[in-house]
């Protein structure tokens, strides 16, 4: 009865990342650890980073949330692992949304970008308002 399957909003790989999130959990003795929440729904995502010679050597995320926020975080950690911080700095909102590959309604944009916010605020120590849209 639904068009949800037809328009591929919940694509197989998003559901896969939701059900089997990559790099999920905590790191012992992380170099950076940061959490952000989505005030709309109270969902939380946190990330732990291990940095060596300016490279993200290891990364884990934790928290709870919807399929969009969890899949987005899982995809982002896959991409960040082994990436130099300088390169990670260049990851944009458009990159994250592009990787999800689905049309995100305005109400759900914050879900999709929550993990990017954790990355930016946590890893770069940016003031929170600099990453607000």
């Amino acid at each position: 009865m639904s068009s949800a399957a037809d328009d591929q909003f919940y694509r197989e790989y998003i559901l896969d990342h939701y059900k089997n999130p990559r790099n999920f959990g905590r790191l012992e003795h992380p170099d950076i650890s940061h959490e952000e929440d989505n005030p709309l729904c109270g969902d939380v995502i946190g990330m732990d980073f291990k940095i060596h010679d300016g490279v993200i050597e290891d990364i884990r995320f934790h928290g709870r949330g919807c399929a969009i926020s969890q899949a987005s975080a899982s995809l982002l950690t896959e991409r960040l692992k082994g990436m130099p911080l300088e390169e990670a700095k260049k990851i944009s909102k458009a990159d994250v949304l592009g990787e999800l590959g689905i049309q995100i309604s305005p109400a759900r944009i914050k879900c999709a970008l929550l993990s990017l916010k954790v990355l930016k605020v946590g890893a770069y120590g940016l003031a929170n308002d600099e990453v607000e849209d």
Partner: protein
Amino acid sequence: MAVAGRAQGATPKKFDVAAIRKDFPIFETGIAYLDSANTSQRPRQVTAAMMDYFERYNSNIHRAAYAIAEEATERYEATREKIRGLINAASTKEVIYTRGTTEGINLVAYSWGRANISSGDLIVVTLLDHHSNIVPWQLLAAEKGAHVEYVDIDEKGELRLDQFADLLKRGPKLVAFNLISNALGTINPAAQMVAQAKAAGATVLVDGAQSTPHQPVDVRALGCDFYAFSGHKMLGPTGAGILYGRRELLEAMPPFMSGGDMIKTVRTEGTTFHELPWKFEAGTQAIAEVIGLGAAVDYLNGLGMDAVRAHELEITEYAYEALSEIAGLTVYGPPPSRRAGVISFALAGIHPHDLATIADRDKVCVRAGHHCAMPLMTRLGVAATSRASFYLYTQKDEVDRLVGSIKEAQRIFS
């Protein structure tokens, strides 16, 4: 005047949902609207009354000596009498226009609260309360050095009255609670709680945001000191709400907002204030919205609040049963007989946002989130729930469509 003509159109006499829905043009879009605890839909009679004001007698109230301004003033004040009757207040002097429940509670917190709460005082609220009936008291307590205690809930989502009684023994200055929980639909035993709190010497504010639209309310039988509610949850427009207060309390309170229309005389040496209720209504008011709210009250009276409640109970029982039959679905809160038309639930493995998005594809409007009740969500151990809420226009077919969306979500996430 086709629009104005419809404004005088008769309200269906018998409780006929199909006929009622014809008064709500939004249903022509094909949506299943299950978010009336958030905001209700509005019948043509309400929007037509507002358009009639805008197009035929738009003018400011209480100021001008010409005919259209007199009509505007008359109709604006007529709503006050309609509200007085709806909630059975003793006088229209006890009916203060606000923008909504939040402003009404803030008015009490700032005006009564700043004058009456002092260091060491206790304010009692409940875990079922909406943020709008928690945060103003937290701010007041922080400012005055008072403290706030919360009545806990039991496993059915009902207030723990034993703990409430214990808190009353500590002599709270103020007790504030909602008559119906917006998040769980729990109907609190308000008259009993007010009587206990009054016996303990407390001033009592009841948040009526979810009760006034859905069941008969009698503030004098209830016995509370303040009762706040919103127009937009009871068929009226946004921007118009009501604070009821007992006259002797309102008389003694200082103004909240000040400015034009709330004064008697202003001299450079000082000002004397207008009498009730206008003392609390500074500046140009939401005239069209108040007139619209009057039309909403007419509509509700045409149906009868007992009939509204009876219809919603039928829908709630139907939905409660339909949802409870779904594997992996947990309903929060008490059984239908002790709840209003609100059902909060969780689906195993499916986040409320994802359900809301999938339901939206089926044009089913359902709320996902913390429902402005984060302390309650924390108590339940969840970040958010899905919530379906009903009103006088809700039909079983809309509940069936929600069940279809839930099954679709379960198929996608299986």
